[in-house]
Every structure is written in structure tokens, then in C-alpha cells.
């Protein structure tokens, strides 16, 4: 049985130009920022936000991050991805890139920057294994913190049109009397839902 720990989350939103009737037939791509060696937005988080949006509004087509990066190689690799909308404008001056983007019909590009880190952990648990059997005794606990920011770029205007950030923190516990019982705080999942809900409000005509 998996029990759940407590999570505290805050979401900030700053939107400049929301599409009032949704995004129509256009597609959205969500990409993780990974341009520095210590900067690594998890693929799983990007995927989670994409699924959150497309599962709640089935009319929104969210392109897969890896498919998009492959389709536009080498322009969206960690070292070559545009950092500002002006760089995107320059990139679109390249005919093959503009053609590919037109094929993909992408109206919004959402960049997610951030990660989930373990900020604290402590354990006084010991496990033993003997021919007669085994078991664990003790207590472990750890804290995780998620900080993510999503920046929304519009392709038609080649401009930033919104910014959403979320931070979530929570503590997980694992007491053990023979069997360890994990009580996990879904920190990353809460951050994903928080940022996903805000993006859904931005992109969907129904929310």
C-alpha cells in the first residue's frame, strides 16, 4: 500500500495575450531547457505537463518533445535551442526550418525550466538478512522541492505571451517495522498539475 505525504505548492501566472477562443487546429510543443550542464529539466516532467493538458482538453494537440527535436535537428538541441523569441525569428528565416514548422502547424512553444531536488534526507533505518529471514527497522524521511517556470512563445507574433511558475515542496516518510512503509509526498506531480492547470487555462477555450 502506498500512502501519500503532504505537499505545499504555489503557482504564479503572468499572461499577456491569451487566445480567447483556444488554439483551434494548431499544435503546441512543450520543451525542456537543458542548455547548461547543471540545468536539466526532466523529460518526465515535460511529458507529464503535456499529458495533463491533452488529457483534459482533447482538442489540443501537444507534440512529443523528442519527435519535435528530431524533426528540427539540429536547431533545438541543448546547445543550439533559441533562448529568446528574437532568436526564433532569426531561425525562421531559414527556409527548411520555416517549412518544417509550417508542416507541424505549431502555434505555441512552451519552454519549461526547472527541476525537482532533494533538499534534505535523514535515515536511521537498518535492514538485516539472515538465513532465518530478514527485515528492516527504523525511520527515514526526506524533503523534495520542485521549482519550474514555463515561458509561452507565440509563433505568429514571434513573442513571449505568458509566463507561469510553480514551486512545490513536501516531506516524505518511511517508517519500517519489518517492512518499510513509504509515505511519499508527490512533489513533482503536484508541480506538474499546478503548471499544467495554468497552461490549460491559457490554451483551452473550455477552461
Amino acid at each position, binding site marked *: 500500500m502506498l500512502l501519500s505525504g503532504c505537499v505545499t505548492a504555489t503557482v504564479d501566472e503572468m499572461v499577456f495575450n491569451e487566445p480567447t477562443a483556444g488554439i483551434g487546429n494548431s499544435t503546441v510543443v512543450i520543451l525542456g531547457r537543458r542548455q547548461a550542464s547543471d540545468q536539466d529539466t526532466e523529460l518526465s516532467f515535460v511529458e507529464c505537463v503535456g499529458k495533463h493538458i491533452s488529457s483534459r482538453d482533447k482538442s489540443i494537440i501537444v507534440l512529443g518533445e523528442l519527435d519535435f527535436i*528530431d*524533426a528540427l*535537428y*539540429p536547431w533545438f538541441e541543448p*546547445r543550439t535551442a533559441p533562448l529568446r523569441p528574437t532568436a526564433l525569428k*532569426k531561425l525562421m528565416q531559414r*527556409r527548411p526550418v520555416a517549412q518544417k514548422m509550417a508542416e507541424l502547424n505549431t502555434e505555441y512553444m512552451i519552454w519549461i525550466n526547472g527541476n525537482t531536488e532533494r533538499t534534505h534526507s535523514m535515515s536511521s533505518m537498518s535492514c538485516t538478512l539472515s538465513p532465518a529471514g530478514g527485515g528492516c527497522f527504523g525511520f527515514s524521511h526526506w524533503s523534495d522541492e520542485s521549482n519550474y517556470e514555463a515561458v509561452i512563445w507565440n509563433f505568429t507574433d514571434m513573442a513571449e505571451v505568458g509566463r507561469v511558475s510553480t514551486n512545490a515542496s513536501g516531506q516524505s516518510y518511511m517508517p519500517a517495522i519489518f517492512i518499510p512503509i513509504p509515505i511519499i509526498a508527490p512533489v513533482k506531480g503536484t508541480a506538474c498539475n499546478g503548471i499544467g492547470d495554468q497552461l490549460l487555462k491559457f490554451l483551452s477555450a473550455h477552461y
Partner: protein
Amino acid sequence: MEELLLALMIFAKTRTLAATTTWLSILLLISACGTRQVLVQGQFPTPVMDRVPITLGVWYEDEFSNHVFFDETKSKSEADWIVETGPAQVAMWNTLLAGMFENLVHIQARPSADSQSPLVDAILIPHVEELQYTLPSQTNVNVYEIWLRYRFEVVSTRGEAIAELSMTAYGKTPTAFLKNSEKAINLAAIMALRDAGAHFALNFSHEPALQQWLHQFGTTELD
């Protein structure tokens, strides 16, 4: 992980202290002294770009097309690593160069003053000068990393130097559950190869040593 499962299965069958001790010792020996081997494998996308209007020849020396990195561990608690990047190098550079240049020709021998090379404008000879890696056990960070350092010779059909370029590439992959070290190193190597391809594709026409030479073919590259 397979070794652990095997040991646990045998432990479950025997369940004696002596047998347990023996099998745990074997398990420790396997995990401490083994050699980890990775044949780098992956798919590489074709670049989306205007092709450079030249016919490029490419010559892969044996050392490049069979490139193997061997790292003998200095610690008894860690394994030796053999990382074979050669076939993946050839696959990546073939895909990249075919998408980057108007025509790509594979040369069968190193160009020299005596060689009868096909009609190409220049020949590219890539070399892997160095490969370095880090594992989570070395850095205490849950990331596998690979650095590659390349040297490229651009020569005429008679083997005369046109330019020499050097370049570094970097790839990393975070550890993930159910992913073993070999798979993680493979993914880091693929990322490094993609990074190498991206860097080469974006900078080839901007290399000062090549810019003037390329002008004769009417290249107009965006800044």
C-alpha cells in the same frame, strides 16, 4: 541486477549460512571486478538545413570507424569500461553529412598526391582525439556524462590541407529507475554524438579557415 537475482534465487534454494556467505562473496566479486561493455547504438535525425553546395568526400580511418574507448579502473570497487562508439560515429556522420552537403561521396582510401580520388571539392577526415566520461559513483551526482573531442582534416583530393578544425561535444543522461549503467552510458554517448553533429552543422560554414574557401562555391550563410 541479473547477478543479484541469480544470487537471491540460489540463496532461496539453499538457505544455509555457508551457502549464503559463499554466494554473497561471489556476488561481491562479480560486481567489483567485472568489465562493463557498451556498443553505442541509436538513431540519428537528418539535419533540416540548406545544403552547402559542394560535393564532399568523407574518409573514415579504421581508428575512427572502429573507435573503442577503454578505461581501466584504478579502484577495486569499480568496473573497467569498454565503450565502442565507432559504428555509431559512422552512422551519425553519414546521416549528418548527407543532409548537410549537396553530394556526399565515401572515399575508399586516404587521399594523397598519388591517389585517384573521385571528383569531389574537398575530403573530410574526422578523428576522435579524446573521450572522457563520468559516472554517478565518481561525482555523487545522478548524471552520466560523456565528453568527446574531435579533430577534422579538410583536404583536397591530392591530400593537401585546406583547413583543420577541432570541436568538443558533450552528452549527459540522468539516472532513471530500471535503467542500467550501460543503457545510461549509451544514451549519454548518443547525446554527445548529436551535440557533435549539431555543433558541426551550425559552425562549418562559419569557420574562418573555411569561409574564404567556401565563397568560391557561392555559399550564402545566415549569420
